[in-house]
Every structure is written in structure tokens, then in C-alpha cells.
């Protein structure tokens, strides 16, 4: 099962490689990983999505917590939470499909961020399932390039286990 894990870390050189080294060294899997500083510039927040049964997820959270530079580990997916991902998609947009592409983007509340005679680049944010949906719809039209941020997530206010 997929789990979204949020990790607060000391914002120091080498900390990210401690986390990724732990995953590769112990054979855990990382589906996506996203890291940036928090309101406190000394602390970074890392959100990662991983897969595994209960025992593996338990080991992952414990092992992360054991790293000296890790301040807090939360398995966000154990609670009510919101998640967002942003994707940039460059999509083929020839004369005969330009209107159709725009309509799809509009439905998904996406934004065109770059235009060329034969393509659009669009920005879409949303949950992982929404991102998957727009990619599935645009794929037959012709996706030329895709860049995703990976998921960031936050527990809902007042959410408890």
C-alpha cells in the first residue's frame, strides 16, 4: 500500500543523502520525494511517497526517526490529509487538436504557461489521482514531455488518527 510520509529535518548539507541512502541501503522504495525549507529556515520538510506492507512502513518510519538529523516523522496517510502535486505537460497541439486540448485543460483547471505553433505547455495541480486523470486523457493526443514535482501533503486541521 502507498504511504505518504512527512519528515522534518535539520536543514544541513548531507541530510538528504542520509535519507536517500537509508532507502537504497535497506532496499526500501521511493516513489516520489519532495523537499524544501519550512517557515523556519533551519528546518526542511521532506515529503515522500513509498510503498510497502505494514511491517515495512513501520521500519521506514523508525529508521528515519533514528537518523540524528531527523526531527519528526509522520505517516500522513494514517490520517485525514490533503495532498497536491504539480505537473508541467508539453502537449502536441496541431491545428485540429488545439481547441480540444484547451477544453481539457479548462476542465482540469489547468493553465497554459507556454505556447508554440505546434504545442502548449500546461500547468496542472491537484491530487495524485487528478494528475493521473489528466495525463490519461491527454496521452492519446500526444504528450511530448512531462515534469512532475512529486507529492506534498499536509494533515487536515484537527485530524487525528
Amino acid at each position: 500500500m502507498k504511504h505518504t510520509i512527512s519528515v522534518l529535518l535539520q536543514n544541513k548539507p548531507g541530510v538528504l543523502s542520509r535519507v536517500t541512502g537509508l532507502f537504497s541501503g535497506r532496499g526500501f522504495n521511493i516513489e516520489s520525494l519532495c523537499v524544501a525549507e519550512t517557515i523556519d529556515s533551519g528546518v526542511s520538510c521532506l515529503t515522500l511517497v513509498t510503498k510497502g506492507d505494514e511491517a515495512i512502513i513501520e521500519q521506514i518510519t523508525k529508521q528515519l526517526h533514528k537518523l540524528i538529523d531527523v526531527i519528526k516523522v509522520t505517516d500522513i496517510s494514517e490520517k485525514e490529509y490533503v495532498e497536491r502535486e504539480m505537473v508541467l505537460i508539453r502537449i502536441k497541439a496541431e491545428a485540429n487538436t488545439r481547441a480540444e486540448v484547451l477544453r481539457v485543460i479548462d476542465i482540469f483547471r489547468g493553465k497554459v504557461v507556454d505556447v508554440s505553433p505546434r504545442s502548449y505547455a500546461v500547468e496542472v495541480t491537484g491530487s495524485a489521482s487528478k494528475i493521473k486523470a489528466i495525463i490519461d486523457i491527454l496521452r492519446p493526443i500526444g504528450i511530448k514531455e512531462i515534469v512532475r514535482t512529486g507529492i506534498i501533503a499536509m494533515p487536515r486541521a484537527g485530524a487525528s488518527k
Partner: protein
Amino acid sequence: MGKITGCKAIVQCLQEEGVSTIFGYPGGAVIDLYDELMDADITNVLVRHEQGAVHAADAYARVTGKVGVALLTSGPGATNGVTGIATAYSDSIPLVVLTGQVPRALIGNDAFQEVDIVGITRPCTKHNYLVKNKEELVPVLREAFHIARTGRPGPVLVDLPKDVVKDLINFPEKTPIRMQNYQPNYIPHAGQIAKACKLISKAQKPVLYVGGGVILSDASKELTELAKKLSIPVTMTLMGLGAFPGQDELSMGMLGMHGSYTANMAVAECDLLIAVGARFDDRVTGKLDDFATKAKIIHIDIDPTSISKNVKVDVPIVADCKHALSAMNEWFDDEEHSDIEEEAARHLPWFEIIRGWTAAHPLSYKMDDKEIKPQYVIEKINELTKGEAIITTEVGQNQMWAAQFYKFNKPRNFVTSGGLGTMGFGLPAAIGAQMAFPDKTVIDIAGDGSIQMNIQELATARQYNCPVKIAILNNNYLGMVRQWQELFYKKRYASTDMTVQPDFVELAKAFGAVGLRATKPSEVEDVIKEALSIKNVVIMDFTISREEGVYPMVPAGSSNTQMLLV
């Protein structure tokens, strides 16, 4: 206080931590630090290879309980130390390893003798640091010692750029270390202790399964009290040997791949397994699906990651072994909770079964009057040192025979590379132990293969007057691998024959040590006696029965009850 050099600050930090002996090897990046050490009241043991320095510091830590310190130069000096660091990491040994680094301006430039040792050792240290800001030097060193010795101990590496240690800095006053993100939990949860004790007081066939954590937390006394009070049989892992007196009638010896028949059967048949400071290593459990299947499991460990990692446990207790065991003793001392005499009496039928196993299959070997049996050598060493020597080992058959046939009655007397299984560990470890206890008898039980991996340290032992004794169980084979080849690879002895060996007696002489040899069983006792009487390094070369194996043996991947016996 005025400004002082980084080197002076490092020496002051070492003194603050009570360090009197370090192990190391100089080089360009640490020459300033060595210069400073010359005037300090700290002995640097100049080893002959950096791996030896780290093993010696590791053994010093194992026998004293203090943090061991090694000092290595940059580049190859540091990489040579990596095996030593990984060895200490596997066995949770508190170490601080100081490595020189090229000046900050050159880092990343592929400078002479530059490696990213912080990157290299990240997966085999508890934590590591590159000191980039000179004012962080002292706080980092203090944190390094704190991290190394607290919680589940481990090695911490501090990489010191040459310009940082030469610069002038302020020496900050020592304040208590507070790390928001690192607070190991020593005190057990009272509710979990009660739950565990209630399980114990219901058990008919309990077993204490004890690991190195009991030794690391100095909890032998508390463990012995609990076991004796409730009459619970004890089995120990390789790292746990000595935590409970090996001669005691409650001791079943070691469990696992080369454990005793009794210990493995008892774990298979018990209804309650009380794991204390052990981590359910694969060499201990054998086939996991068949391990202690009839038992509820209580697991005490200070490291939460050890709990339910390999085996799902019923009552986890995250705490220091010493604190947890004392809390359990207190629980049982409360008459409202239990009747101790009744507790002990309830286990009598269980003891009958256990005694039956020991009677049927005691730890044994077939004595021979022509060839020396290695087990006999260990038994004789045990007898002649009254079980009081510090024993270090190499890795392989020598290590297993030492673990099986030397009866350790005290903790911190058995120094062996358990987790990593590092050949070449025993001789430098013996030197580290002897530096800590100059008057004790220190014996390295070695094989003819492993001894050659760090044999250069004979010179170190001579230079620092460490009268270590080395017992080579010489079968001209890499014996343990050969045994596997004999049993599982149709006797195809691929690359395990070591018939071409140095003459170890002459080799000892070349180092200014003493060499003795025994080729017949009748000579064994005299050789050991003579070696023990000599106040110098002695190599005892025992020509042993070439194809002797270590038994019992659980083939890798099999259940612990499927033992191959003598």
C-alpha cells in the same frame, strides 16, 4: 580564555572526555594534531595499518565500556579505517573516529589524499560530521562523544579539514548537551513492564535470550538476578556471551547456527521468549518461520528499529536493558505481584526437559591422541586461565570454537566481531584490550587465515609492550568456508587451501616475539603454560586436525532444530 588552535581544542576535548589512550596513524592532514598530542597526557598507539587502529580502539571500548578513539589521516588513512568502523557499527560499539581532511578550499577538488569519508561512512556510522566552521569544532566533538556513548552506542566519525584544526578559535565552556532531535529513551514504560512480568509469571517454559545489549548497558547483575530469582534458563548470542555466567547451571550457552543443542531446542519449545538487548539476527534465528513458534515474545531493546524488525513481538519494551531489568526485578520483589518460590518451582519440569537435552547432546568433540583437536586447545586455555582471560578472536571456526568451549563468567571478557564478522580483528583487538588492562591475560584465538590479515600489528604489540598471546588453530585451511564446502559443495575446496604458510614460530621471532609450536595433543598444555609465563608477545602455533568441523551446525536457511551434530 584567549583563543587557542583547533588542535589544542581537540586535545582539550579529548581530556574533557577522560581519554587517555588513542590509536592512530599520522599523515599530512593530521600532522598538526599529532604535533599537539606530543605534549599532551594522551598516549597515541602507533599501529601499522589504520584498520588495526580502529579495531584496537573498538576493543578498548568493548573491555572498558568507555568510548574508544582512533585518529587517522585523510584519504587512504581514512578508507583503511572503514572496515573497522563498519565492524564497530555492526556490534554497536561506542567509538569516535577522527579523520584528517584536506583544507576546506581544496575539498571537492580531487586534492592529494582527499576522499569524501563522510559520504563513504554514512551507512556505517551512527552519525558523522565534516567540520566546516571552526567555531563548530568543539560543540561537534562533544556531540560526537555524546552520540557515540548514549542510546544504542555506535561509531561517530568527525572529519577535520587541516585549516580548521590550525586556526585559532574560542574554546567554549562545557554545557549539558541538548539535542532536540536525539533523545534515546532509557526508562521503560511501566505498563509494558507489568505486562511483561505478568506473562513471565504465567509461563511454564520461559527462556531468556540475551544479546550484546546487556553487556553494553552493564546489566549483567540485573539479568543474573532476574534469571536466578525466577529460575529461568538463559541462552546468549555470540555478542551476549559473558552477560550471564557460562558455568552457571541456568546457562544453556550460545544459540543459533553453532549454538548448543539444548539452547536451540529450548528456544523452539519454550512458551515465552524474553529477548534482552538482542536483535534476532539471521545467524541466531535460522529459518524465521520456525523460530520460537510456540512462544509469546517479550523484547527489550533501546533501539526501536530492532523491535519487530525480523520477528513480530508481543510485548515490546523500548528502554535501556539495565533499567528495564531492574524494573522487572522490582516488580517480582513486590509480594503482591508474585510468589517467587512458586515461580521457581513452576519451572522445575521445564528444567527436567532441558537437562534431558543436555544429557543427550552435550557440547562435545571426539578426542584424538595423535592429532590436536582445536576444541581441546580452547578447553585447556579455559582451564589454565580459570576462565578469567580476555579472549579476542578472529572470524571463522576459531571464533566459534572459542565461543563454544571457553566459559565466560564475566561480561566484557569476550571481544569478537559478531555482526560484521571481520577477519583480522583479533590481533589489533587484543592490543586494544591489553592497553586498557596491562595486567590481564589477553589471548587472541586465531586461525591461520585470519591472523595474516593484520599480522603487521605484532610490531605494535611489541612497541607498546603488550604481552598479548596468540593461539593459532592452524589447519592450513580457511576452515569455516572449507567446512561449508565439505558439507554443501561436494568437498570442492575452492580457494580455501592455504598449505603455503609462513613459519609462524620464525615469524614471531622476526618481530622480536616468542614463537611456540605444538603438533601433538600431549604438547598443548605445556605450550599454553609456557606462553602464559612469558612477559612478551607469544605466538602459539597449534597444528590441528585439518578437517575438524564446528558442530552443532544449523545449515544456512534451515530451522534451528535441524542441527548437524558431532
